[in-house]
C-alpha cells in the first residue's frame, strides 16, 4: 500500500479551506499549520499565468526527516506515511532542518508536528483526510497508489502531473496536476 495525494492546480482556488479544516480537525494550534497555499504568478500584465497549490508534507518515499531523526520518533507508517510519535521526539529540530519543503514545525507542546495524512483519526476509519473531504472545488485526491482503481491512481494516469523539487531526491508522494 502506498498512500498519496494529488491536488489539481487547475481547479484549486487557493481558498485555504483545507488549512482551516486541518486546524479544526486535528487540533492544530492557532498560529500553526500543517498545510498551506502557494500562488505563483508568472508574466507581465496582461500576459499572465497562475498556478495555485495546496501543499503539505509529501510523505516522501525517501525522506530525509526520517533518516536524520536520532530517536526514531519520525518514522514510516502504514501506506508509507511519515509520522512523528510525540513521546519519542526530543524536539532537536533536525527533521525540520532536513525537510526541503519546510513541512514540519515545532508544536508548542515541544514535539515536532506535521501533516499525518489524517492516518489514524480518519483514513484508518475509512474517511478521507480532513482537507480532502472539505475542499469546495473537489480538487484534492487521496488514495492508495498500489490500487490502480483508487481515485489518485486514476487521476494520475489521466492527467499530467509534477512533484515538488524532485531534484532533492526525496521521492515525494504528493502530486500536483498541471
Amino acid at each position: 500500500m502506498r498512500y498519496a495525494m494529488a491536488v489539481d492546480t487547475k481547479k484549486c482556488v487557493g481558498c485555504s479551506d483545507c488549512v482551516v479544516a486541518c486546524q479544526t480537525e486535528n487540533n492544530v494550534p492557532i498560529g500553526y499549520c500543517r498545510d498551506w497555499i502557494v500562488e505563483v504568478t508568472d508574466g507581465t500584465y496582461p500576459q499572465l499565468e497562475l498556478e495555485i497549490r495546496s501543499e503539505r508534507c509529501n510523505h516522501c518515499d525517501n525522506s530525509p526527516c526520517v533518516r536524520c531523526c536520532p530517536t526514531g520518533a519520525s518514522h514510516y507508517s502504514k501506506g508509507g506515511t511519515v509520522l512523528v510519535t510525540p513521546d519519542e521526539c526530543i524536539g532537536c529540530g533536525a527533521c525540520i532542518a532536513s525537510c526541503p519543503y519546510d513541512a514540519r514545525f515545532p508544536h508548542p507542546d515541544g514535539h515536532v508536528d506535521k501533516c499525518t495524512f489524517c492516518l489514524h483519526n480518519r483514513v484508518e476509519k475509512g474517511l478521507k483526510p480532513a482537507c480532502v473531504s472539505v475542499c469546495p472545488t473537489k480538487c484534492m485526491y487521496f488514495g492508495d497508489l498500489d490500487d490502480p482503481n483508487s481515485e489518485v491512481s486514476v487521476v494520475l494516469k489521466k492527467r499530467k502531473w509534477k512533484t515538488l523539487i524532485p531534484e532533492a531526491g526525496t521521492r515525494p508522494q504528493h502530486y500536483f496536476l498541471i
Partner: protein
Amino acid sequence: MREELIVSGRMNHLVDPNLHIWHWHIPLYLFLGGLAAGILFFASLYTILGKENEYRTAVKIAPFITPFILIIGLIALFLDLNHKLYFWRLYTTIRLESPMSWGAWTLMVVTPISFIWCALNIRELFPRWKWPHSLLDTAEAFFRKNIRTLSWILLIFSLILGVYTGILFSAFNARPLWNTSILGPLFLASGLSTGAAVIIFMSKSHRERMVFARIDLMLIGIEIFLIVHMFMGFLASTQVHIDAASLFLGGPYTTPFWLFVVTLGLVIPAVLEFLELRGFRVPHLIAPTLVIIGGFIFRFIIAYAGQESRWLY
C-alpha cells in the same frame, strides 16, 4: 515578474518566513565538539606515538579543558531541545543514518574518556592527588595499563566527533549551503586547527608551540583549499547552490565570512605563524586567539546562513 506567495498566512514558529530553528546552541555545540575533538585527537595521537613527554601540553594539560567544553556543549544541545523531558530518548536507540544520533553516541563515548584522560593526568596539576577510594586506584591502574588501547579508541572517536560536527550540517540536502560533502573534512580541519591553537595557547614550551604552529599552518592551508573548493562546487552546481553561495558572494554574509572567518581567522594567523616559524618575533598568543575566534564565528555563520539557504520552487 514571477511572484511566489504563500497566501494562507503560514507563519509557523521557527520555520517562517525563514528557517531559524537553530540559534546559538547548535553552532556552539559544534564548535566546542570540534575543539574538544581537536585536543583529544592530538593527545591520543602523541600518546600512541609515544611522545607524551615531548608534547606535554597537548597530551597532559590541554585535555583538562575537554570535559568542561564537552559538558557545556551538551548543555547547549540540551537547551536547544524543544521537548527536553524526552532527552533520554536519544539513548534508547542507535540510528546509523542520523548524524544527531551519531553525535549523541560519540559524545557518550568521548566524554567519559575525556574524564578518564584527566584522571590519568590529574597529578600533572595536583602532584599530591589521592583517590578517595581504592577502587579508583585500581581503575587508574587499569586504564594506565591499557593506555594505548584507550588512545586508539579516543583517536578514532575524536576523528568521528570532528567529522560529525560537519556532517551534522552536510547531511541536510534540504539546505543547499550545507549540502556539500566538503563540510565534514572542513569542520574536522577547523576543529583540529582550533585544538592546535588551544595547545599553542597553553603551551609553555617553545618547541611544542613551533610544532603545533606548523601543524596549524598546514590545517589552515587545508581549510582554505577546502573553502575554495566548496565555493567552486556551489558555483558549478544548480541554481539553488549558486544562490546559497551568493549569500557569501555579495549576500548578507559576505563581510562576516570573508573578513572574520577567512581573513582574520585563517589568513592572518597563517601569516603570523609562518613568520614565527621563520624566526620573526611575533606575539605568540595572537595567531591562536584569531584561529579560535575564527573557528567559532565560522560555525555560527554556516549554521545561520545554511538555514537561510533553501530550495525555491
